[in-house]
């Protein structure tokens, strides 16, 4: 192997690793706040990517309709939950967020899809659509289960993943798609060629990590989220609405997922079911980070990306085996280092 190949693999690994880092962060975030292990994170990625690619190709993505349908469902859940104490303001607020908003977005999507919109519009629309899907999903699928065990939440999460993946096939077909680069152009430094796309990936990942760090460290909402993560009951007692925390977490996760999708779809062809594996690699990073530490997750994600790049060069057949088996030594270390702490479940 020469240095060029090594540098090239390293670069490839870091680009993928950056995406895994973002997904890992989202998984950690959602788990910490809601105890949901978010298997559908991968679907947020494909939905974001394929919505973006469809829009850019001048096609109408089905996800916009899904957002409205889920919105109507969320509205029904809101009404049912508040059936004993209905009042005008509550209904109005629920209508605006759950029905009017997705309806407007749907109208915009229909309008723009017909005329091959510029990249920026495609990105904005895809992000908003997937963000709404994430938000409404929390309301419909997870909020009613918020009091149950991690296991039940996990199974529900699998159910959501299956439904979303099936819908993905319905919306986007079995064909893979690619989207236009977010930032075109490239430059070379030594033997390495940096495309605008890879620079975007690095930039956005760093921006998100810094952004999340600021959000959790400095803002009231961020602190409320952290409080919910540490102790749900305690958070409720001091007046934090835990449902709001859950909504914020899902909103962030779906935006992060969609953004990751938009960033990779110009680099690799994505299919309706590609998300699952991509999400799982984010998982690997998140587990290495212990599901609690953001910086460790980010570093681990880079390692996962680099290991993947190198193993696809040396032993491409065993690429996935190597990536997932990477966990075993980490878990081993963790179990050796972990103190025998008491845990009360249920």
């Amino acid at each position, binding site marked *: 192997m020469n240095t060029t190949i090594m540098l090239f693999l390293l670069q490839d690994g870091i680009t993928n690793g950056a995406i895994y880092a973002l997904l890992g962060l989202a998984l950690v975030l959602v*788990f910490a706040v809601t105890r949901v*292990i978010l*298997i559908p994170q991968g679907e947020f990625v494909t939905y974001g990517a394929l919505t973006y690619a469809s829009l850019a190709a001048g096609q109408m993505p089905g996800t916009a309709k899904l957002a409205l349908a889920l919105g109507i469902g969320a509205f029904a859940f809101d009404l049912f939950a508040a059936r004993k104490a209905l009042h005008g303001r509550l209904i109005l607020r629920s209508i605006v967020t759950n029905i009017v908003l997705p309806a407007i977005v749907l109208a915009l999507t229909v309008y723009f899809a017909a005329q091959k919109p510029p990249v920026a519009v495609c990105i904005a629309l895809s992000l908003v659509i997937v963000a709404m899907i994430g938000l409404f999903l929390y309301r419909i*699928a997870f909020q*009613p*289960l918020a009091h*149950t*065990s*991690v*296991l*039940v939440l*996990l*199974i*529900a999460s*699998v*159910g*959501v*993943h*299956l*439904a*979303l*993946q*099936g*819908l993905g*096939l*319905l919306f986007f077909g*079995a064909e893979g798609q690619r989207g236009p680069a977010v930032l075109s152009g490239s430059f070379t430094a030594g033997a390495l060629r940096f495309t605008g796309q890879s620079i975007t990936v690095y930039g956005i990942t760093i921006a998100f990590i810094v952004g999340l760090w600021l959000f959790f460290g400095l803002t009231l909402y961020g602190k409320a989220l952290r409080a919910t993560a540490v102790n749900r009951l305690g958070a409720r007692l001091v007046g934090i609405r835990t449902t709001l925390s859950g909504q914020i977490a899902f909103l962030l996760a779906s935006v992060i997922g969609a953004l990751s999708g938009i960033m990779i779809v110009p680099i690799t062809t994505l299919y309706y079911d590609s998300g699952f594996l991509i999400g*799982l690699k984010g*998982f*690997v990073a*998140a*587990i290495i980070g*212990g*599901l609690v530490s953001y910086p460790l997750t980010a570093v681990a994600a880079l390692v996962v990306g680099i290991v993947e790049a190198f193993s696809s060069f040396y032993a491409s*057949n*065993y690429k*996935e*085996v190597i990536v*997932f*088996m990477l*966990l*075993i030594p980490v*878990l*081993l270390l*963790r*179990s050796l280092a*972990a103190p*025998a*702490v*008491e*845990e*009360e*479940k*249920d």
Partner: protein
Amino acid sequence: MQSRLPILIFALIMAAIPFVPGMPPFWIVLLDNIGLAALVAMGLVLLTGVGGLTSFGQAAFVGFGAYTTAVLSTAYGMSPWLTLPMSLVVSGLLAVLLGLVTVRLSGHYLPLGTLAWGLGLFYLFSKLEFLGRNDGISAIPPLSIGSFKMLSPGSIYYAIWVAVIVSALLTMNLLDSRTGRAIRALRRGHVAAEAFGVHTPRAKMLVFIHAAVLAGLSGWLYAHLQRAVNPTPFGAQAGIEYLFIAVVGGAGYVWGGVLGAALVVVLKEVLQSYLPLILPGSGQVETIVFGIMLVALLQLAPGGVWPWLMSFLPQRTNGKKPDTSLKLEQRTRSPGQSSVLLQVEKARKQFGGVVAVNNVSFDVQAREIVALIGPNGAGKSTTFNLITGVLSASSGSISVLGNKVDRAPPQEIVKLGISRTFQHVKLVPDMTVLENVAIGAHLRGHSGPISSMLRLDRADEAKLLAEAARQIERVGLGDQMHHLAGSLSLGQQRIVEIARALCVDPMLLLLDEPAAGLRHMEKQQLATLLRELRDGGMSVLLVEHDMGFVMNLADRIVVLDFGTKIAEGTPATIKTNPEVIKAYLGVAA
């Protein structure tokens, strides 16, 4: 002991089904698939529902079982009946290997860890040359008895359902035993179980292997039903599916696994065959509907369908009182033993910069009630944890009957005859009082998992339950023996903990706030009981806040404040000690 009658009826019905005239052969295929899934789900019930260890990796064990028999019966021409033990052993051994890595993982690492190796193994199945890569292995011989070959789904049906029913019986036997109680205590954290001598890593490993062997059995049957294997049914998706079969059915119940398998297999089949008629054309509609129904089902019955169904049946308190004439061996108490039972010398415990226990020394003599008192945060419970081996001291030493036990784990401490209760009650709420108390006698029984499954443990078991029943009656809860521990009041639960501790046949009883939550009369009964125990030769060390209770009961009192011992003496001297008064009431400035 549950009645065997419903199981017998179930077995007869299952045996009769293939003879029903006009039974479509396709239904038999479905029943075969249900049986295969039920085996795996049953393992998960034990692993996840009862033991609290969530695994996504069970499909990989099904794969081990299937591939073992596939390779051995095709490449080496072995008889399928010979490959059965091989399949089970391979699954079991690999479970040991993977279990060594994963079982120790706590909380949420475990499910994710199993997901990771489940995926890795799936890719390994599809890449290895001798497993036929993605094409797998075909032309696997069928099961046969003499010249009768089980070629049709109808003939292997019996093999599958005999396996299901036998496995269910063995699993239920296991749960209703000494080992079973240890497994059922796992989910509520390990401190309480370990305090009574349960080796929790071993118990976890045991359920892990049990689940893997059941999955391997399912894989073996699968290979001979399909007569071909390929990697697809052993992937992560399948692993996840097995888990939700268990959860949908009711993860804590053996029959929940079977019911869940039936529900999920039938539901998928119905969706696959009828949905395209309603919504023609589009591809994976059944996955979408399946996913949505799964979420809906969980929202309606988060505990699973089986317990929901059972709640419609009339409740029976199915307890016959154990025969209390049976006796366990008593601890030999040599009369010449030194009178100092427990010696704590300069024990110190630091958590980072906080000194929770600061060079505390005291002792407990034989036949003595010593009270450890002090304001909140004085380090009383930490001292208890140091003595019982839950925490190890930063410095200083603790000896029992002159032997140092500084680094001994809780399981060793309890063997020496020191048993305890907890400040925050640690009972298993969905076990009966009798079963909870019987955990206390864990070390006094000897039956292992295999003899429990085969019901060879009954003599041993009867003695354990008799001892438990005796101690429950001794503390005055005889009427509640067959109630679920979670249904008792907090005060009564504390008393149950005392009965459990007494089952150890201890020399020294450590009670952490036993009187909290008790009514006046109950406190007096408790005090009477403790005096009786002392007069019977036992020593008691207790932490308590109720001063009236302590002053009337204790022979000697040790007072802690901010981790430091500030006084020690008889109740009369402690009452007038200025240091103690200052610690409790403060001093006028």
